[in-house]
């Protein structure tokens, strides 16, 4: 829609103005800015010849989550005294969001990626949070002179980034040189979609309606879910889009109501007007005990209970991986303890431990490499972490972790609390891939 495009351009113009002011007022950390990096990046911490960057949405509703991820990376680097093997590194935190959007922004992702390309001593990027942003950044930095810049994401769950997803050209199109430079520790969506379907089956749900926000992540996980649900014998009554800019969704749910669903599955992110979506679900279909409401990890955010208020009560939200606050392995517990102490927080956000782990995956590869990016890239894959923060796991040849546990949370008294963990069998996860 051209009007929409015009709108985003205008919005962007406004956002740039706001950003410029925000950047100008950002306090100094230490050291001088690294030449070539955009002003969405902080000043570096640590010292050394090489650079590691993180790339997260630091503005909008995801800020608390992102800030903890940045701190987790810093915590691990500090433990190493900013030295990875024989390479001493500095760390910068870059922002891929705009204040006006309150979430990641394609143009900012593109700009960030192009500037990473120009920094020759950049050894790796920890990021992104949003798969959509990774889809933009990965292919750009894959073509960096001197070899693709290694990238490890703690939170990208979109399947197509590493494996065939059904979308043409995936995942090869993210690696135009043919040499992969991307790995992740987050649990891919097919696991989550499978787990979501499995959880509904556990709860004796037979008829479910799916709503997705039509973004890569939302659409992807909706499809994963639908395939897994069908495999499990659930009836999927429909899988349609919700339009984030619509003022309300009462008619949408009235259409759905005529199909008598027992559960609604929301695949997408809460910043796409998720609050209204939940409010209207409850006002048309009834509360979440009457018709179960399950949402993917894009809703696993304090914004969900805040925006939806009481309507969110009793809804379930899954999240790939384990709840960091409940890690039981020694390395994990040690990480959580250290993090709480260093940053004076009690509650770790969903991806904080994963961010620490992502840095370790990168560091491990750097350590084994000859110092060239191509060599680091090669060593990203097929690594083993018997004592990782998030547990014992491997990175497979396409860059995915072998851990597939999915946590189911529930909203209670305005908080998101873990209920249980679902471990979908690998066969179901594969079926979800299609």
């Amino acid at each position, binding site marked *: 829609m051209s009007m929409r495009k015009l709108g985003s351009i205008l919005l962007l113009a406004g956002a740039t103005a706001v950003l410029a002011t925000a950047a100008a007022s950002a306090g100094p950390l230490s050291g001088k800015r690294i030449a070539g990096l955009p002003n969405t990046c902080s000043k570096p911490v640590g010292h050394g010849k090489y650079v590691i960057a993180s790339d997260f949405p630091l503005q909008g509703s995801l800020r608390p989550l992102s800030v903890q991820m940045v701190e987790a990376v810093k915590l691990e680097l500090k433990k190493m005294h900013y030295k990875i093997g024989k390479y001493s590194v500095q760390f910068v935190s870059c922002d891929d969001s705009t204040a006006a959007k309150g979430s990641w922004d394609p143009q900012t992702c593109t700009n960030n990626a192009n500037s990473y390309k120009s920094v020759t001593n950049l050894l790796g990027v920890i990021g992104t949070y949003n798969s959509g942003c990774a889809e933009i950044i990965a292919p750009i930095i894959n073509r960096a002179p001197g070899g693709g810049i290694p990238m490890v994401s703690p939170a990208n769950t979109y399947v197509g980034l590493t494996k065939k997803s059904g979308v043409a050209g995936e995942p090869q199109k993210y690696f135009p040189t043919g040499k992969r430079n991307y790995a992740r520790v987050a649990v891919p969506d097919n696991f989550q979609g499978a787990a979501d379907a499995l959880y509904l089956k556990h709860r004796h749900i037979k008829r479910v309606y799916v709503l997705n926000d039509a973004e890569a992540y939302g659409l992807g996980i909706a499809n994963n879910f639908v395939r897994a649900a069908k495999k499990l014998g659930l009836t999927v009554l429909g899988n349609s889009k919700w339009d984030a800019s619509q003022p309300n969704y009462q008619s949408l749910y009235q*259409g759905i*109501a005529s199909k008598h669903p027992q559960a609604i599955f929301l695949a997408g992110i809460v910043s796409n007007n998720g609050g209204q979506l939940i409010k209207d679900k409850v006002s048309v279909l009834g509360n979440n005990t009457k018709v179960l409401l399950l949402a993917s990890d894009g809703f696993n955010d304090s914004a969900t209970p805040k925006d939806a208020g009481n309507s969110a009560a009793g809804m379930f939200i899954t999240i790939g991986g384990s709840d960091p606050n409940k890690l039981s392995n020694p390395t994990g517990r040690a990480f959580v303890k250290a993090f709480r102490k260093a940053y004076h927080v009690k509650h770790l956000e969903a991806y904080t431990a994963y961010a620490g782990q992502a840095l370790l995956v990168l560091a491990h590869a750097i350590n084994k490499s000859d110092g060239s990016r191509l060599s680091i890239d090669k060593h990203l894959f097929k690594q083993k972490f018997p004592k990782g923060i998030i547990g014992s796991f491997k990175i497979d040849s396409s860059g995915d972790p072998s851990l597939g546990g999915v946590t189911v949370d529930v909203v209670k008294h305005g908080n998101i609390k873990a209920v249980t963990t679902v471990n979908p069998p690998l066969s179901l996860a594969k079926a979800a891939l299609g």
Partner: protein
Amino acid sequence: MGTSVGTAAETSRRPSFALVPRLRSRAVAVVGILLLALVAFWLVENAVHDIRQFALVSLNGITNGSIYALVAIGYTLVYGILELINFAHGDVFSWGAMITYSVAISWLGASGHSGIALFGILAVGLVCAALFCATLNMAVERVAYRRLRNAPRLAPLITAIGMSFVLSNLIAVVYGFNYVSSEPLLPRGALFTIGGQAYGWDKLIVLLITVPTLVSLMIVVKRTRWGKAMRATAQNRDAARLMGIDVDRAIAFAFGLGGALAGIGGFVYLVYFTQGRFDLGFRIGLFAFTAAVLGGIGNILGAALGGYLIGFIENYNSGLTWHAPGPSWTESLVFILLILILVFRPHGLLGESLSTRS
């Protein structure tokens, strides 16, 4: 009829939105009728398919449409009098919602009350939102548009876009970039049920606020001294001056009226949908402006009609199940309709048609 701000005598000066001004051949008419028939068939088929759902969705359409109608009138009033698309109008609407939040929810704690107390709080919220937005819109005119009244048309247009950013960013400064949200305010109990689905009191209340507002506006514009002054100014500014009308005040009056309606629209939006954000006015504004053009820009009744039409499209499209394109198509459909109307009726549904032009 009779609610038009503009006049045919002026239409020659006015940019007609006609895309194909002389496209009136029989073939085109046939295509138009076929399209209409198709839409009518689709609606009837859906109604037959599930009459209850159709009724519910229609009622939603009326509710949402009345909000679009309130906002659309602000565009039409200003366009009628200045030939300016007041892009900032949608953001004035956003301010109405946010002020309602501040006054009724933050300060007076509406969510904790019911009955008469709630009614009182909401009444205060409504008056505050209307007054604030009327003042805001008049201030925008005074500060940004008045000195550009004789400038080339592009200048005030660009200024309007700028004002839109200023207003929405100001909301972000005051309220942040995230949603403000509240628990349901209006009683949601069922007034009646259709096929097990409730038609809540809240929807009726929305209509009880918006419809009388629309009617009084038409009376004000049609009957009162300043309403007439405003229409006179829209139709012939020079002659209006010679009738002793202070044209600046008449224009301010139009902005004030439009602003007050946007404020009431924002109020209704917030208490009905119970959330708001700085960019609220972007889509609502776009749709409301489209509604104004659909109805025939400058024509108040037309703007209201256009608003309801868009409310229906939006809700039919997401709520009907028999071959509905689905909500992702709403925007496309609205603009397709806009284009069709401009092809077949270049001056909008109730605007002057070309043939009656001298």
